């Protein structure tokens, strides 16, 4: 398959390539779009700009290395699934399961997202400017140097950090007005079943709300320590820089930390007698 020059214009000065995901306003199938991305990488391009993306799934699936993807439009589910290293920036919203089973890399979303963002991610960063849906950060896990970080500028729905086995989730509870100002979100920071089944890792929420009734099984609320503040600081600074959030607004509310009661939450649930 030859790349059609109508669809692709190269900008060799910064080693970038542009791909039109909907030539003549007709979205191309995801398989074709991903093949174009792979071709671009094989041809040595380090930066790939996807224009007019319209719901195509699996964008950037299992990509490796120092690649940058810019997505203009609305990517479909499973953006960056199994990804290992690249940086994806979405100028807009994003559907479900971005960063599914991600090993490494960065996903920056300048908008809202759907559900199950970062499912089982082992490493990398997912920064969402606005709100996220249900079951975000489910079963993210850390391992040696791998440490997944999910930061949500807005609010999250139910089951945030379910089955969490490591890493860090932060929600800030901010709202971004169309005129560019940043204010406090009027809705509650997260839904019910917060951190249910968590057995490692931390969920940090910027809120003054009483979260007790929202806590899931095996999760407990703690006051944030100085050490934890130092730990999250570099991620927060990076997040605020990317999305132009003034640092002083962050300081207006305290952080609460949700951590597991135990690394073995269901240990006493089973018994193994000889029958």
């Amino acid at each position, binding site marked *: 398959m030859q790349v059609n020059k109508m669809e692709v214009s190269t900008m060799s000065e910064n080693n970038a390539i542009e791909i039109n995901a909907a030539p003549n306003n007709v979205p191309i199938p995801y398989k074709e779009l991903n093949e174009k991305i792979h071709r671009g990488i094989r041809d040595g391009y380090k930066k790939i700009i996807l224009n007019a993306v319209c719901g195509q799934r699996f964008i950037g699936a299992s990509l490796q290395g120092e690649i940058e993807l810019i997505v203009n439009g609305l990517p479909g589910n499973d953006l960056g699934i199994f990804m290992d290293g690249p940086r994806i920036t979405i100028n807009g919203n994003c559907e479900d399961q971005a960063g599914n089973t991600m090993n490494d890399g960065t996903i920056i979303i300048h908008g809202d997202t759907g559900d199950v963002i970062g499912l089982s991610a082992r490493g990398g960063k997912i920064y969402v400017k606005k709100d996220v849906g249900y*079951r975000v950060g489910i*079963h993210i896990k850390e*391992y040696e140097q791998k440490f997944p970080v999910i930061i949500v500028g807005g609010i999250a729905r139910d089951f945030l950090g379910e089955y969490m086995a*490591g890493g860090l989730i932060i929600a800030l509870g901010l709202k971004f007005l169309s005129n560019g100002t940043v204010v406090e979100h009027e809705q509650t920071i997260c839904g019910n079943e917060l951190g249910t089944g968590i057995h*490692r890792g931390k969920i940090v929420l910027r809120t003054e709300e009483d979260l007790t009734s929202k806590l899931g099984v095996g999760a407990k609320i703690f006051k944030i320590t100085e050490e934890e503040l130092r730990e999250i600081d570099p991620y927060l600074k990076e997040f605020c820089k990317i999305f132009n959030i003034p640092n002083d607004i962050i300081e207006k509310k305290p952080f609460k930390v949700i951590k597991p009661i135990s690394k073995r939450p269901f240990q006493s649930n089973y018994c*193994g007698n000889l029958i």
Partner: protein
Amino acid sequence: MASLSHNIPSYFRVNIDREYCKKCKRCVSHCSYGALSFNGEKIVSEDIKCVACQRCVAMCPGKAIQIVENESYLPPHGNYDRRIRNIIWSQSGNGGVLLSATGNDRPIRSIFDDLLLDACQVTNPAIDPLRETIETKIFFGRKPNMLNFADNSTDSDEISLKTEFMPNFEIDMPIMVGHMSLGSISYNACMAIYQAAKELNILAGSGEGGLHPDFYEYSSNIITEVASGRFGVDINYLHNAAGIEIKIGQGAKPGHGGHLPGEKVNSLISQTRMIPKGSDALSPYPHHDIYSIEDLAQLISALKEATRYKVPIGVKIAAVHNSAPIAVGIVRGGADFLTLDGFMGGTGAAPRIIRDHAGIPIELAIAAVDERLRQENLRDEVTLVAGGSIRYSADLIKAIALGADVGMVGMPVLIAMGCRVCQQCFRGLCSWGIATQQEYLVKRLDIDVARNRIVNLFHSWNEELKEVLGAMGIDSVESLRSNRDRLRYIGPNPKIAEILGVLHAGQ
């Protein structure tokens, strides 16, 4: 308060013949369950701890030990048998969900045993498998239902194919060693299985616990598994597989997740599963990106994208009441192979209640799925793998005749390696070095010996398969698949024969 535990009578008694006992204490060092000890004078046994694993019996140089059933213990009752009473005593003592291992231990009648094979007499000649070729190879992966040709060719000798082929590979026997992860079984056991699979050119499942880099060299014969915990799933894992299977369910525990207790997560397991040492490895009950057939199709497509369409992607489900329509959805959703795991199938650890009571027998599931796929004109597109108590070659042959392409085998492989079926796998104390992670136990399993025993086992199964094919006058195992006319039923329930699509013997 006094202890809540009843003093339950032991299952077994360890009889030590004092005349033959040399007091060498070899049995004590070999008993990983702590049932034997030396009190300064003689070897003594704590019978309640004995699981009858037979390690001491095998290791005793004087052949002084005998494990016997402890018979004189409970008043008999036909309904509240010993098993039921023990379950109640255990639960009233602990208050937890009872764990179990291996397959269902209830004495449920095997449907395979109620099936008889056909053989040729006079009108259709039998084939001598020792002198004529009988093929047992299988092409694994999705096949097109029909071929389309381009008709733009001007040269009539030149045919150009329009049909796009899906990835397929060839295996020499219709056998796959079922998924047993590093974690549920030991490194040595995994190594023996993978080496045997490569030597025989059959398949072996990795289980859902990742694939240790040492095993990459056998990956051309390994089906890796993507389960809800996504343990060890990274690009290397996806690229080191003959095929990838999305694990939805397991026959021993349909609808249940996984739970590898933290004490088993040593550095080897940590490295392979890519989780911290000592942490529980929890597999959520469902995949949280799969709540529908459409979602499943999405993960199938995602894995195909991630592997650039180079390997078959399949789905494993437990055999349950509505397996047939689910199977249709899976195949329509793009799965290249479909694995069915029956309710007698094995496990390293599962709640007893699920293992013993949930699911349906594999024989019925194969027949129902095969029939439904044929009705939907999908059967020939997909490779159907079936397991869940395929115990010996007869079960394998009958499973194929009912409609499976490949038989999935677990327990026989463990038994070949030395397992005595003591059903304590979840405790991680396997004295034979199979279902354990403790180094001093693991090294008891000699990889070369275990590999050769597996190779021998399947070699003999394959020869027996050829014998049966020859007797049926069939020269390729592919012609036996779904060939239910070569089966007859002799069991007590004609409804079973009807569901299997098999006539009664004599018909």
